[in-house]
């Protein structure tokens, strides 16, 4: 699904990634680890198409509409409610039976009661749950998750792990994390960035 050879990314004089090689098959689950500033987020941004590599080869055999991306930011409008945010993304991703799917995800991530509350009033943990709903909304074939456990409470962690287990058979995963032990059981490979 993704194949990278000698991947490099520079921002001006600063080299963020150097000579990264990896492959992610259709049923793969790749964990990306490394200290702060090692280029984990940059690598994920390259893979989803939000940035272009400076050198090397990157092949992503998937349309961008089939990728679900969880970023550091929630990628939701603060002045819109959870329902309105997901409805907007559902329209743009042409999600079939949009309303039912949004309702199911909000219920599953414990946000149903707060569905009519503006995202700007959400706590960090609730925003992360909403961001996960957004990433899972269109039932993607590839999930690119940047620190998915960030800001989640214990209940949120359980919800996420259940969701990852449910989707493991139908999607490939590329996950950047500081806590690889949580995902060790599911992972098929690990990429350590220096």
């Amino acid at each position, binding site marked *: 699904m993704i194949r990278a050879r000698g991947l490099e990314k520079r921002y001006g004089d600063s080299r963020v990634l150097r000579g990264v090689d990896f492959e992610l098959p259709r049923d793969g689950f790749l964990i990306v680890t490394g200290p702060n500033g090692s280029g984990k987020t940059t690598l994920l941004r390259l893979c*989803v*198409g*939000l*940035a*272009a590599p400076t050198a090397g080869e990157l092949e992503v055999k998937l*349309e*961008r*509409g089939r*990728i679900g*991306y969880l*970023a*550091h*930011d*929630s*990628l*939701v*409008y*603060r*002045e*819109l409610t959870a329902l*309105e945010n997901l409805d*907007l*993304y559902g*329209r*743009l*991703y*042409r999600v079939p039976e949009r309303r039912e799917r949004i309702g199911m995800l909000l219920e599953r991530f414990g946000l149903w009661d707060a569905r009519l509350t*503006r995202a700007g009033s959400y706590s960090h943990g609730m925003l992360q749950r909403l961001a996960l709903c*957004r990433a899972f909304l269109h039932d993607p074939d590839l999930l690119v998750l940047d620190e998915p456990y960030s800001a989640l409470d214990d209940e949120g962690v359980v919800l996420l792990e259940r969701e990852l287990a449910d989707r493991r058979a139908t999607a490939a995963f590329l996950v950047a994390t500081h806590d690889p032990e949580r995902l060790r059981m599911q992972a098929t490979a690990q990429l350590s960035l220096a």
Partner: protein
Amino acid sequence: MTAYLADVRALAHKDLVLELRARDTLPAMLLFVLSTLVVFHFVLPADSSALAAKGLLWVAIVFTALLGLSRAFAAEREQGVIDGLVLAPSDRSAIWLGKAIAILAFLGLAEVVALPAFAVFFSGIDGPTVAAVALADLGICAVGTLLAGMAAASRARELLLPLLFLPLAIPIVVGGVGASVSSHTTKYLGFLALYDAVFALLAWASFEYVVTE
């Protein structure tokens, strides 16, 4: 095509809802354009011609539009929402068109207040001026939204947008003032329409490269 228009509609609707809730662009534009006209009213000598006043109307319109454009992508900058929109499978020009339509609505509303105010402070507004303002709005929003998208990605966005926008707004001012004060109204209106068509096409085709690396 239907899907594209549905995306544009959803994006424009979202911007209108955001403004309805946050109320941080339209009230500022209204206050700015009214304040500018009041200042011009006192700056312009009492025996000045109506032609000079028409020129000032165009100054007020261009700078009011600039104020609105400077806020155009403010909501997308927060929480990195622009990344979410760019990753959606819809055509990226739909982001530009939806945003341009929303800015056009704000500018149009500001002018609904500004034009009667101009008539009160200075002189009456004639048909050619209204037509010129409507055509100029299309060009301002087409070009301005593209440039606002470019500036939003920059750290010096407050500085960059006026520097990019004002030179490209010169033909709009030339056409607008010409249509308002000249006897060759049709020629100037045609010029504005041509500007709108050319720059709308360019902005539509190039927006994808503005929001991607």
